């Protein structure tokens, strides 16, 4: 079970969290202006990398907040967690 550092609460065990999919996929400000292909891409296409992955988690059984996380999908190692709106560490 991973230890995940909630940016507000600190390190907590994984079962306090809920996974939220890939991060930094902003909902288009004007969805109506998106053509079908662009909208389908927003809905369904994800990078699914082997390696570093920026993803969303929610501390659902803690403070309840969403945050972002960089996790290596091969080793499961988390290299950083950060608040929404913050830029991912390089």
């Amino acid at each position: 079970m991973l230890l995940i550092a909630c940016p507000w609460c600190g390190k907590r065990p994984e079962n306090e969290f809920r996974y939220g999919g890939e991060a930094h996929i902003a909902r288009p400000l004007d969805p109506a202006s998106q053509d079908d292909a662009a909208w389908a891409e927003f809905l369904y296409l994800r990078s699914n990398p082997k390696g570093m992955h920026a993803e969303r988690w929610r501390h659902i059984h803690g403070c309840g907040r969403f945050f972002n996380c960089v996790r290596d999908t091969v080793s499961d190692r988390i290299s950083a967690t950060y608040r929404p709106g913050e830029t991912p560490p390089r």
Partner: protein
Amino acid sequence: MTGAFRTPDGGRIDRTRPLAFSFDGRGYSGLRGDTLASALLANGVHLVGRSFKYHRPRGILSAGSEEPNALVTIDRGAGRITPNLRATQLELYDGMRARSQNRFPSLAWDLGAVSNTVAPLFPAGFYYKTFMWPRVFWRHVYEPAIRAAAGLGRAPVAADPDRYLHYYAHCDVLVIGAGPAGLAAALAASANGARVVLCDEQPELGGSLLAEAASSWLRETLDTLAQRAEVTLLPRTTAFGWFPDNLVGLAQRVTDHLAHPDPQLPRERLWHVRASRVVIAAGAVERPMVFAGNDRPGIMLADAARIYLRRYGVKVGTRAVIATTDDSAYAAGVALQQAGVAICAVADPRTEASDAARASGLPLLLGASAVATSGKLRVSRATLSNGEAIACDLLLMCGGWTPSVHLYSQSRARLRFDERLQAFLPGEWTAQVRSAGACNGTFGLEACLEEGYAAGDATGVRRHYAPPLSQPTAQPAVASGKAFVDFQNDVTARDLVIATQEGFRSIEHVKRYTTTGMATDQGKTSSMNTLAIVAGLTGRPVPSVGHTTFRMPYTPVTFGALAGAARGHLFEPVRRTPIHDWAVANGAVFENVGTWQRARWFTRNGEDAHRAVARECRAVRNAAGMFDATTLGKIEVTGPDAAEYLDRLYTGSFARLAPGRCRYGVLLTEAGFVMDDGVVARLAPDRFHVTTTTGGAASVLHHMEDYRQTEFPELRVWLTSVTEQWAVIAVQGPLARQVITPLITGIDIAAEAMPHMSVREGRVGEIPARVFRVSFTGELGYEINVPADYGLAVWHEVHAAGEPHGITPYGTEAMHVLRAEKGYIIVGQETDGTVIPTDLGLDWTIGRTKRDFVGKRSLARPDMIRADRRQLVGLVAPEVLEEGAQLVADATVLPPIAMLGHVTSAYWSETLRRPIALAMLSAGRARIGQTLYVPMPDRSIAVRVTEPVTYDPESSRLHA
């Protein structure tokens, strides 16, 4: 007398405490401090099991948790029968009842052993090759036969009456293994007050020191550790798995060693230990040698024989032959010789005598190895490569040592191959995990202690230790005859030859094809021999063959320990409403909805379900019914931007919804599919009370929080789950207003003052209440929300007030029928995650003037506007259809036939006096009036497609 093979003195057993036990029904005597294995050996019992496939007689190979042969069933009465336990790990207690496994009718005379003598019945790949055809034979003929013939012990049938607990612990350093290296690590780690957990699978801490002369260092170390407040010592505790971020699972056996366990104690504890640093000091496992007939009872690992002698005071035989490639066997030979065992020969394939060999004074045969054995139920003769056949009752073997790198490897660290030890070793120390002692390839007491201290010390640095003096040689590639590599799964060297001849190269494939290493011992004694043989057969060095994955658990963990308290009624939390007990007392039959228990119907005077539901439906349609709707999800949405926020989440418009009014709300996923529905009630300009489905409450709140926090963070809005805060009593029926009028204060509930889809705050007596005029039945209806603690009191009041009007409590079944008559959907019943509002005829819920809401853009995607989408319709059928049944156009065509849709809800409508059904039907609205067919196994049912609403289509009753 505790056995003819007990030495007169020595060992750590308590000779003043004899213990009676039975094995296969026969009584024996052992001593406190014995394992079942040592007690059996003390009584001269070597034959303890039959092998997995060939039913060959098997004895005790080892003295520890690596044991592949001596698996027994311990019977402590109904529900307390545990199969597949290693006799080498079982602490003897008075009255222990043990049974051998995999034999019929008895160990000494086993019918299955015929497979040992008839043809090579079970070679590698046997299962794949033999049982391919016909397929149906597999389940009904082959599998039952194989399961009866081959296998392990039987799982108990009765429920396990014992308790199991989960513990959660945090520590600075977790030390796994309490041999010299582990003890030293624990000493060093705890010296400065760090919190240390030290666990060991054995009943006593000390590891290899337990088979040495009594040591004052061990005693003093254990005293010191016991006195340190921050140190937790856990004997009988196996570290069975390493999980990310240094979470280690420990299985602690609390009562299995006791004749009369304290009923207050759990049988086992499963520890979740999160450690800043883990020191692995798991030791090493002695390797068997691979030669024909290397599996007979009386053939044992050399150091195991020494341990039985030194620790348990048991002489495991009288005439021994030793086959070894490693110097450690000489120490064993000397010890046994001193105890009076005749050592007839030591076959050592090395051509030059090592110092240890010379110093031992044992009869040495250099350049020789064991090639065959004979003996029926016990080894009686060993044949060596020089042709010599030696009579013996004991054959000790040592093919070197395999460091126990299981936990290290699970920590996803890379192993390196050590040519000198012919074994895989841990890599360098990391901040999280360090290995010390024999599991790290470090042998010799002094080196182990030194490495242990360094590993325990936070600032410790690892030194690299000099190799042992001798150079063990690799195993001869392949022996003839039945030369076992994996004892537990009966895999021979010949099987590995077959696998490589058939083209398997990857060790993972060889493993699966031959099943080597796949038994419950996970190949502790077989893995390195397998690798060495496959390397030889394929002409590659061992490192390029690689090793198979080390998986948890290190040794089997009981389901009880894994489940802990999460079984029976604690398996999942059960949620009950405040009205639950009343419902129980009034004949309710319950169903689970999510984690809630809801009353399905209330049985009166022994009526059946059908009659009860029909009676409840009639009451609602003709007078009044009352319904416990407490389980509905409730979310309070507050803040100056609450209306704007709801406009963005729901399909409908709420900005202009007046306080005191409600609106039906449909929630979509971003992909446009219906996710949930409910009522959105505006209590004040900045305060909404939103309901969700019973099962959807948590996921709706999560969905709402997601958008609130991540997409619309600029909106000033807050979400609070109030599901548990409000009890909800629905009063539905033409007399509903008359029933509640005398109860309600502070609200004008006259029809005009409080129209359909409105909400008011007032009181029921003294109790604050939110009263909704809403209906899920098609009748005039109210839902009275009161603080949950008052739910039962108000239920009683409503019931009393309604009695003169014939009020009838109804359950979810009647609710389903009534809403289906009215064509109201249930999310999850009519919808399945692919349904959009238009499909359900819910276009009217969509605020057309809204620029955007979650899911809106998706509703314009090409697939969402196809004419052949499935749409909600009603069906008129001659009988109550099966929910999930399919709809087809032609009754005469046999399947496969195009499916046009499926039945989503089907009931007997007491109101209409006929069966009704709802269905999702391709282009359904265009098919209204058509006749379709529901194919059943024995017939087709003709159905007519109708509008979904079959009762009061004008909704005049709602507005009464």
